[in-house]
């Protein structure tokens, strides 16, 4: 196709010009039809590519790369099942329930940023980013990592949930919610577990629940912080698990996938992973929530 265009470009005016320099209207019409056909072909190509991604990515409801061309506004929730914020977080006392996360800018918590996106899909979330006085400055992408400011953010009480991220000089990530009733939660893994519970009911079946938890541990202890041997072992385990099912804990996406994806990415071991894992990475990235995390690493 590119060849066609080039030829067309070259031959345009010189060969088909009439004696007075004008182009024959018939030729113009033909060119216009060709342009139109080319444009349609390109559109179709994009659509087919998008569909191909959808087909190869298991269980993805909507691929954001397709949605723009198909101009669909709505995105169905990735997780079904009811969760009641009042039941989980305590009775609503008429004020914003604000989740505060203190993170070190040297180790941005990618898992939590992905979960934040998922939370925003499900609830009206007021997201704010602060820099604590213990840190002198922070790169701009960390300041905008929760996305653009919500137009209603001047009215805190209109939101169901607050997500306040504070970049601070802390040795370990820490979450605070209800200071009176809850102790702080330490570590990205544990905070991820807490946030995920706000999205989907924890698998009630004990075996499945334990499986998800063990993958989360694998992600944070072996993939992120482990030696190169431990990482290699973990990647092999990922590979064999993904040979048996579409997502790590079965046919459904779970926290296991979110955690493992982020840790694989942060450890930089994606290129050397087994084929299954690489395919699964691509599937994750096809879901819009994960791509943001990737850009943050750059």
């Amino acid at each position, binding site marked *: 196709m590119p060849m066609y265009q080039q030829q067309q470009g070259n031959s345009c005016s010189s060969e088909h010009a009439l004696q007075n320099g004008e182009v024959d209207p018939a030729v113009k019409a033909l060119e216009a039809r060709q342009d139109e056909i080319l444009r349609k072909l390109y559109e179709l190509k994009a659509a087919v590519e998008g569909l191909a991604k959808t087909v190869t990515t298991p269980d993805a409801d909507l691929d954001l790369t397709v949605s723009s061309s198909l101009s669909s506004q709505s995105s169905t929730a990735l997780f079904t099942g009811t969760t009641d914020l009042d039941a989980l977080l305590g009775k609503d*006392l*008429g*004020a*914003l329930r*604000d989740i*505060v996360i*203190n993170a070190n800018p040297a180790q941005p918590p990618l898992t939590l940023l992905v979960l934040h996106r998922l939370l925003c899909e499900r609830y009206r979330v007021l997201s*704010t980013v*602060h*820099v*604590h*006085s*213990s840190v002198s400055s922070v790169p701009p992408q960390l300041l905008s990592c929760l996305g653009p400011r919500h137009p209603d953010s*001047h009215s*805190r*009480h209109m939101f169901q949930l607050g997500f*306040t991220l*504070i970049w*601070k000089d802390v040795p370990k990530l820490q979450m*605070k919610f*209800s*200071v*009176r*009733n809850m102790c702080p939660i330490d570590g990205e893994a544990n905070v991820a577990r807490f946030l995920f519970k706000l999205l989907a009911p924890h698998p009630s079946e004990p075996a499945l629940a334990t499986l998800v938890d063990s993958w989360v541990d694998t992600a944070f202890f072996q993939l992120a912080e482990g030696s190169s041997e431990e990482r290699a072992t973990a990647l092999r385990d990922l590979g064999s698990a993904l040979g048996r099912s579409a997502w790590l804990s079965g046919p459904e996406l779970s926290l296991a996938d979110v955690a493992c994806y982020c840790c694989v990415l942060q450890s930089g071991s994606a290129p050397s992973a087994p084929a299954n894992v690489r395919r699964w990475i691509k599937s994750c990235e096809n879901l819009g929530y994960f791509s943001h995390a990737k850009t943050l690493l750059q």
Partner: protein
Amino acid sequence: MTKESAQSAAEEDQQAQSKKALKKQQKEAEKAAKKAEKQAKVAAEQQSTEEDDFAKDRYGVSALVQSQQKLDRKLVRVQDLTPEKADQLIWLRARVHTSRAKGKQCFLVLRQQQFNVQALVAVGDRASKQMVKFAANITKESIVDVEAAVRKVEQKIESCSQQDVELHVERIFVISQAEARLPLQLEDAVRPDGEGEEESRATVNQDTRLDNRVIDLRTTTSQAVFRLQSGVCQLFRDTLTKKGFVEIQTPKIISAASEGGANVFTVSYFKTSAYLAQSPQLYKQMCICADFDKVFCVGPVFRAEDSNTHRHLTEFVGLDIEMAFNYHYHEVIESITDTMVQIFKGLRDNFQTEIQTVNKQFPSEPFKFLEPTLRLEYTEGVAMLREAGVEMGDEDDLSTPNEKLLGRLVKEKYDTDFYVLDKYPLAVRPFYTMPDPHNPKYSNSYDMFMRGEEILSGAQRVHDAQLLTERAQHHQIDLEKIKSYIDSFRYGAPPHAGGGIGLERVCMLYLGLHNVRQTSMFPRDPKRLTP
């Protein structure tokens, strides 16, 4: 008795008398001899003193400096006495902080503001015995001119700010002598209270300090506090000027009490009375109506409140801001909080020496803040308090203990000492506060807190004459008294908001001190009018 026995008795008497007299004479002679000996000795000593004092010209009390001559002598600052100057001969002028003689030597500590250095006058080829004695007797706080050689020291001198060098004095002259009895000792004034109690050494109580402020201000702690305060003012001006604000000056003698009648000072004004301004509120707003758009002013504020608390003064320095905004008063809150954050950053980055100096005497946690500033809504604050067991109504104002508790709860959750509480109930705010557009119980007003204590009260102002009149009537305010205020809004007024802080209170809270009199140079309260 016979004539013979009487005679002998008389003779005996005479003999006795003459014996007594002899003894007396002898004693007197001895005394005289001793005295003569002593006098001779003193004379001899004096002679020897005068004879031996080869250093006579190198010390003494100078004549009063009446600008007799213009010496081109360079005086070195104590803070510049570092090993780099080793072996140089320099002149400096400082106060005698302490002096003690030890045999043939006299150790002096010479002080200049926050810096001090050890100096040594030793009998040798430059200094005589008499000179050492003179140096040891110079009263504390006297100002001296010293010529000395800077020498490196083997062991660090821990008790001085200049730890790596000491001065070997060659010449020392007293420029201004201090009286021998000082109303307070500077070492006592700088001693932390805890240490004073533990080691039963004296500390100085606040009233004594304030009564002798001139001496108290010389301490390293006071020097640090007021330098930091100067920094706050400077940062306030610089930040706002960069944001395009204009500094204005407002009148302090006014005709009507602005905020609410009770707490104003009255002054006699020719044939009538006038008041000292409680705040520049009215004039700030008039400036906005006069199209200055963004203004700030720094000036005295007078409150005749009979409150004898740790945080109230009858006169303090107000730093006030007023700003026209486009669509939402949060534009103003953001401007104010950003200014505060720039001040905190400026202090954190440029005044660490001063902060550490103050902390030595008054230990406290360093001041923490978030950027952008945390803004909570009043309902959230009430919810947090209720969760902590406080019982209060939705529209109740926050009592001081509740403010402090809320400050602690916010600190626990967000780890910040500075935050904004937005959307106060309308009922507890002044009449000129703009009500909330959606909920009549609340208003577009806010307070800002540092370490749980209020430092700023502000709001969007009512800029419509009609609404303002209604609100004033609702508050049962005499409309005649505020006629000129309402008139300002009759000829087109932009929507605007603002607030003001107290310089002394902000410094006190930033440093974690506990009494605003520590950050006011010459404080005024219901019981104090001098110095």
